[in-house]
């Protein structure tokens, strides 16, 4: 996703997108960063992490963090059901790639989206941090928000949120009082 690095609003390019549901809303994610989709199995929660970090799972011997995407995007998550699954995404982190899983309610289909069908993210109205939106894909009469995985799942940003969360709980090294 070379388009993700430039600062312009429209960072999505034409290509294939996986659509999925989060609490009855459809989102899209470029398939270039998707490694695989696994069943939602039992997670091990890690203490002192923000609420959107659900925990870790064992992905064939690797311990992979799992993010609740709905919570990360500021939505209320739907309770897990039969079709809930974890999409494993490859994220760049300090020159290497790291795997991160995101919980989605269900995956729908892979769509070919042409460049003409992609609109820049609106400045407001999506009720979502604008930088999280790579673009809006026109699908018939509706729009699907294309998520910018690199920003939504930025490990350094999420880790810094973890610090803030533990500070609020008074767990920091220096004590917060």
């Amino acid at each position, binding site marked *: 996703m070379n388009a993700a690095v430039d600062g312009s609003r429209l960072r999505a390019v034409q290509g294939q997108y996986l659509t999925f549901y989060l609490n009855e809303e459809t989102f899209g994610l470029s398939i270039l960063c998707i490694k695989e989709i696994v069943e939602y199995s039992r997670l*091990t929660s*890690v*203490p002192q992490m923000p609420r959107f970090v659900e925990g870790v799972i064992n992905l064939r*011997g690797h311990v992979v963090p799992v993010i609740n995407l709905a919570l990360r995007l500021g939505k209320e998550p739907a309770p897990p059901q039969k079709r809930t699954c974890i999409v494993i995404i490859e994220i760049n982190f300090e020159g290497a790639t*790291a795997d991160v899983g995101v919980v989605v309610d269900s995956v729908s289909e892979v769509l070919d989206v042409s460049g003409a069908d992609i609109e820049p993210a609106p400045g407001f109205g999506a009720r979502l941090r604008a930088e999280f939106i790579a673009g809006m894909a026109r699908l018939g009469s509706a729009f699907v928000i294309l998520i910018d995985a690199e920003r939504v799942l930025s*490990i*350094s940003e999420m*880790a810094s949120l973890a610090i803030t969360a533990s500070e609020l709980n008074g767990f920091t090294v220096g004590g917060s009082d």
Partner: protein
Amino acid sequence: MSVDDALAAFEEEAREMLTEMESSLLAIEGGGTDPGLINAIFRAAHTIKGTAGMFGQDGVVSFTHHVETVMDDARKGKLTVSSDLVTLMLRCCDHMGFLVGEGLGRETRGEEEAAREKVLLEGLMSFVGGDEAVARRAAKGADAVQGASTAAASEPAVAASNSDGDGGDTGTPDGWHVRVRFGSKVMREGMDPLAFIRYLSTQGTINWIRSELLNLGAPEAFDPENCYIATELVISGGIEEPTIRAVFDFIADQCELTVEPCSTAWLTESRRFPAQTPEPAAAASTASEPAPEPTPAPPPAQVVASPAEAVPVTSGGDDGGARRGGGVPAAAAGKGGESRFLRVEAEKLDQLINLIGELVIAGAYSSLIAQRLRDGEMLEAISTVTGLVESLRDTALNLRMVPIGATFTRFQRVVRDLSAELGKDVDLQISGADTELDKSVVEKISDPLTHLVRNSLDHGLETRERRIEAGKSTVGTLQLHAYHDSGSIVIEVADDGGGLNADKIRAKAVERGLISPGATLTTREINNLIFEPGFSTADAVTNISGRGVGMDVVKQNILSLRGTIDIESEPGVGTLTRIRLPLTLAIIDGFLVNVAGGAFVVPLSMIVECLDLRRDDIETASGRNYVNLRGKVLPFVRLRDVFEKNDGVQRRENIVVVNYAGRMAGLVVDELVGDFQTVIKPLGPLFKMVRGISGSTILGSGEVALILDVPSLIDLATRIEHHESDRVERTTL
């Protein structure tokens, strides 16, 4: 393999070779007489030169060449390896290390380095030519001066204009190494290259000559009227540099000429023109020029090296060398070393161990299912598989094991240099060098060990005078000892110096506020205070140690390796520092517990015992977090509270009693599951701020369990408690 990869491999190999050279030199200095040692030094220099040449690292090549020349003489028995030579060679090793770094653009040459190189080269020159030449030079180079003036006097007019007859430097080497690259138009302008050489031969004695065809290029571009010849020769017999240069005056603007002093002993080594041709093959095609003097054939050392030398060492690096056990590591890398070791990328090994870790987990899962199915045949088959998988895991982990010898040997140099600097006589004794431990632990233990060794040398061992006063031998002893002890490796650094001054440490600790003035501490506890942050009892800060940042960093490093450090000292007798480390970082002996439905692993090495947490125990403590453990107060931490995992269900609870740095504490958990050996998986950067958890592991069921970091967990519990009591105080105020 990209150029960068190749360069990285070159650097790694060069550094390994340098280490090998260094340890061989030190072994020689320590009285080693094995000719294999000198051979190893020569071979290392030769390999470095060869590979550096392949990468165009000219700085390394030219310097190393001189080192190689001197070592070649030593190898052939022409030069005795004196302690002066060892000292010089050690410094050369350091400089070669710098040159390698410089060639890769990692270091820049300052005045100091340039001056150092000059001094080293002069030093090397003084050894050139073997014992005889050294002795002759010492006797004085008078002959050379005389010879030079004779030659100048009988010189025809051609050279006369430029020659200055008096030029008789003392210390002139006995010959000149002349390299001339004739310009392509030389023959067209009516000059015959041979004529110059022939004339030169009348001026002195040409000891050796060799010609090459350069820049031949493609056959169709060949011009028979062009000159492609380059010649190098060694001339001796009292001729002087200006005389030589004057010979080529006619074509001065059409040839490249270098004249370097050398000794005729260089004839043992061929020199090449720096390859400037696009195709190195052209430079390699050698053509013999008819020479006036009978010429020795170009020495084969470089061109037709024996296979063992030509192959840029594929094995027998530091690990391989050390496998022989500390003493003479370099010699081990010699004959036949190639076939015994295989160099494997660490990553591939890690991958293998990861896969085996998964296999262990998958195996555990299948045996779980087999048990559920109660199929006897199936159970039997699975148990065979499990047995095999376990031995496979042990073998794989063993692959990562390397002897600690290589790390120990490195300290010979540290001790040698430091003791010279401090003016102390120190005898370094190494034992248990073949004790094996995980490669990743070896890498991380080197720095803390260096610090301890330096500390012992600087503060531990007394000066010669003090030792005489104390009635000890003037030579101090520093011992490095390693051995295996119940699943861990123990490394001891011991000196027979003055020992720690407990009163001084105590006073200092009180001054720094680390302990209260009235505290009762055992000597051992006082001694271990030196590992507290900001503690240094050295009266003067030297450049070796004493800045007070050392020992606590050492302790942190050891703790981060899940190890422990302990110091024992007796005033006037000596100090012993004992480091205890797990054999590997990849595997942990753990004890599995359950807390509010989540699985946690406590490192087994820290567990003392497990107890029932009885209701009346809690009630007696009236809401406070401690119990009575056989008459002692045992504070405890509720993992449910610390991890905020309260599911509201009240179960019977258990206490796991852990011992951390001499303190006892209890961890309150729901359920005790049992001990097992497990592969550690890091949690990744996202969780780096999580305290109380050091990593994770995968259980047989495929579930992830978190590994508790006991020291930081207790620390965390302490902070939470303080925080809460603060809050209570504030609300009551």
